[in-house]
C-alpha cells in the first residue's frame, strides 16, 4: 500500500514584485518519509515552507496540507511542527518558560508534556540551560530550543527550514536520530538545507530547487543517476542548478590556473 500523501502543492507561484520566488512548484510529501529541499540561497525554499505552513497565500496554484488549505484553516497547524529559518524567540524568557507557553497554547496534557520535554531536552543536551534566559544562549542552543518546540506535540508533519545551522556534529547526529524516530512513527518530514552531505545522509528523497523551480527530484540514488557522469550529490547539484561552469571558473582562478 503506497504511503498517504500528507501535503501537496501543485503549480504554486508566488512573486515579490518582479522576483519570482516560486515559479510553478509541484511536490508531494508522504507519510513516513524525509524529503530534502535543496537549493542555493534565494531559490524559494523558505517561501515554499511558509506557504505550506499557511503563513503566506500563493499567487496561484493549489496547496493542501492534511486535506485542508493551510492559509484558510490555521487550525491545521495543531498537527504541524515548524522550525523557521530566522530564529526570533523571546530573549527574556527561559527555555522552560517558552516550552510551557507552547504547551499551554497547544493545550497539551501536562504529565505527558513533561515526559516528552524531559526526553527531548536530555537527548539534545539542553537540560542544564533550562533556567537561562534565551537571549544568553548560543546560536546552537537556540536552534535546539526551536527544534524541541517543533517536536513537543509529536506532529504528523514536520517542516524544518535549515534546522541544522549552528548544531555541532554530535548534536546533529542525535537530531538525525530524532528525525528517524519521527519518520518511523509515520511523520512526514520536509527540511530545507544547502548542506549537501546532510541531505545525502538523512533524506529518503530530495528535491533540488533553483530560481523558484524544481530542477531535479527523486530518491538520492536516482538523482545521482540522473546525471550519470557525476559522482557526488555536490556535482549533481552544481550541474542541475547551472552553476557548475561558474564555480569551476572561480576554482580555477583561485588555484591560479586561469
Amino acid at each position: 500500500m503506497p504511503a498517504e500523501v500528507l501535503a501537496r502543492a501543485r503549480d504554486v507561484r508566488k512573486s515579490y514584485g518582479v522576483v519570482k520566488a516560486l515559479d510553478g512548484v509541484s511536490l508531494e510529501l508522504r507519510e513516513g518519509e524525509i524529503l530534502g529541499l535543496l537549493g542555493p540561497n534565494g531559490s524559494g525554499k523558505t517561501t515554499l515552507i511558509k506557504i505550506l505552513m499557511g503563513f503566506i497565500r500563493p499567487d496561484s496554484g493549489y496547496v493542501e496540507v492534511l486535506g485542508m488549505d493551510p492559509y484558510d484553516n490555521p487550525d491545521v497547524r495543531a498537527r504541524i511542527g515548524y522550525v523557521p529559518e530566522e530564529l526570533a524567540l523571546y530573549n527574556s524568557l527561559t527555555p522552560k518558560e517558552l516550552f510551557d507557553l507552547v504547551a499551554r497554547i497547544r493545550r497539551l496534557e501536562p504529565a505527558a508534556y513533561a515526559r516528552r520535554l524531559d526526553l527531548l531536552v536530555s537527548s539534545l543536551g539542553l537540560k542544564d540551560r533550562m533556567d537561562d534566559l534565551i537571549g544568553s544562549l548560543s546560536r546552537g542552543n537556540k536552534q535546539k530550543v526551536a527544534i524541541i518546540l517543533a517536536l513537543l506535540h509529536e506532529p504528523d508533519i514536520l517542516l524544518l527550514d535549515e534546522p541544522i545551522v549552528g548544531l555541532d556534529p554530535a548534536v546533529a547526529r542525535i537530531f538525525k536520530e530524532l528525525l528517524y524516530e519521527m519518520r518511523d512513527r509515520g511523520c512526514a518530514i520536509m527540511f530545507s538545507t544547502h548542506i549537501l552531505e546532510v541531505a545525502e545522509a538523512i533524506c529518503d528523497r530530495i528535491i533540488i530547487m533553483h530560481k523558484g523551480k524544481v530542477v531535479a527530484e527523486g530518491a538520492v540514488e536516482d538523482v545521482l543517476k540522473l546525471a550519470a557522469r557525476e559522482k557526488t550529490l555536490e556535482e549533481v547539484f552544481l550541474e542541475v542548478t547551472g552553476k557548475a561552469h561558474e564555480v569551476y571558473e572561480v576554482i580555477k582562478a583561485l588555484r591560479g590556473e586561469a
Partner: protein
Amino acid sequence: MRLREAIRLSDFLYRELVYLRMVSTRANVDMARLRRGVRWASINYALVSAIMTVMLALSSISPLLPLIWPPQDTAGGVELVDALRASGLVSTAMLFTFSFMLCASASWLLQEYELLKPLMHLPLKHGDIRLLAFITASREVLPFLLVPAIHGITLMLVVGLPAPALIGASYGYASIFLALGASFSLSATVSRRHSGRSLRARLARAVSTLTFVLCMASTFILSQMVSLITRLVSQISKFIGPFSSLLWLIYPFSAAEGLIMALSPTSLIPASALAAAYLLASLLAFDRGFMRFWRGSISPIYVGVGEAREVRIRPPSKLTMSPCFGVLLKDLKMAYRDPRTAYMLFTPILTFLSFLPALIEDAKAAIMLLNTAFLASSLMLTMASYQLLVAEGSSFWLLFANGIRKKDLISAKALACTLSYAALAIPIGALAWLLLGPLDMLLNATSSVLLSFAASSICLAYLARYVGPETKMAKMGLKDLLVILLLWGIIVGPYALVALIIGPLQASLIAIADLGIALIVLSTLH
C-alpha cells in the same frame, strides 16, 4: 585620533541610533521616510539641539529678566532674592532632567543594540572607541554646555558681581555631568540581562527594572514639579526660616541658595566651596558612570548570575493549561523583565504621582483629580496594551505556528494590562474611601478597571487585524491612533457623562455594559 575625525565617525554611529529610535518608537515607518530620516539625522539633530539649548537657556534666565527690564505697571517689582532662587532651581532641574533623558535614551540604545561591537574589529585604539562612544551617547547633550555659561553671564549682568555668576555656572555644569553619569550607569545596569533562577538573579532583574521605571518616573515628575518646587521653596524658606539654613547644603536647593549667599561676602566662601565640591562630585560620578557603561558595552551583555545546573522538569498545573493563560503569564513575565514594557504598564502610577503635588496643596480637589486619574489611566492602559503587542517583537510566528487564536491573544494582553492596573487602582480607591470618606471612590476605581479592560480589548481587537505569522513588528499609524482615540472616547465618553450628571452607581452600570460589549467583540474573533 583627532577630534574632527572622531566627530565624523560618530556621525555613522549616530545615524544608526536615529534609525533604531525611528523603528522602535514610531510605528508604520515606511522605508522612504526612514531613509530620509536617517539621511537628515545630523541636520535634524543640530536643529533640535539648538532649539533645546535656546529653550533651556531662556527658562534658566527667565526669572531674572524682570530685573533687567522691570515691568512698568507693577509697583513693587520682583525681589532679587526670589528671582535668584527661582532661576537657580529652574536651571539645575531642567539641565539635569533634559540631559538625563536624552543621554539615557542614547546610551541605552548604544548598549542594547551593541552598536559599539562592530568598531572593535576596526583598527582603532580602545581609547578612540571610548571617545566615539562618549560623543555619540552625549551628542545631543553637548550643546547644553553653553547654557550654564549664558546663565552665568546673565547673572553677572543682573547682580554685577562675578561670584554668583561663577557659582551659577558651576552648578549648571555639575547638573549636566551628574545627569550624564546617572544615565550612563543606569543604562549599564538595565541592559545587563541577569539569567538564572537563583534569588540573586531574580533580585538583580527586579532591581534593574525598578531602577529604570523610577528614574523615568522621577524625571517626569521633576519636570512636572519645577514650578511647584520654586513656589514651595520660597514658601518654606519664608515660614520655617531655621530649616532653610540646612537647605543650602542639599542639591539642587544648594544651587539656589548658593546664588543668594554669594551676594554677601561672609557667606560667599562656604557657598563657593560647596559649589566646587558639587562640581567635583559630579565629575567623579560622571567618570564612574561612564566607565561602567563602557565596560558593559565591550563585554558580553548577558551576565550569568546562577551557574548552570540540571533541573527537574515539572509538569505545569492542569489549571493553567489554556492559551490565554499561557500568553498572560508570558506577558507579565516579559514586562517585568523589560523596563520599556514595564514602564508602559506603570504609567498609571505616574499619573497618580504627578497629581500628588496638587493633592497635597488642595485636599478638596483630591476627589475630582483622582476621578480624572482613573479615567486617564484607562487611556494609558490602551496604549500599554499596544506596547504589549510591540513587545512581541518579531516572534509572532511562534504564537501563530503553534495555533494561537486572536481571541486568546487579545484577551491575554488586555488582561495583563487590566490586572496590573487593578493592583494599583483598587488599593488607591480603598485608601481614598478610608481617608476622604465617600465609598464612591472605591466604586469609581472598580469601574475604571472594567473600563480599562473594555477599552484595551476593543482597541487591541482593532489593532490585531494587522498582526499575523509574518509580522516582524506590530505597527500603528496615525490613522490607527485616531481610530483608537475615537474608540476609547466611545467607550469611556458615556461613562464619564453619566458619572458627571447622574452618579457613580449608574455610571458603574455603563462600565459593566462596556465590559459586556468587549466580551461580545472578543467572542466574534477567531
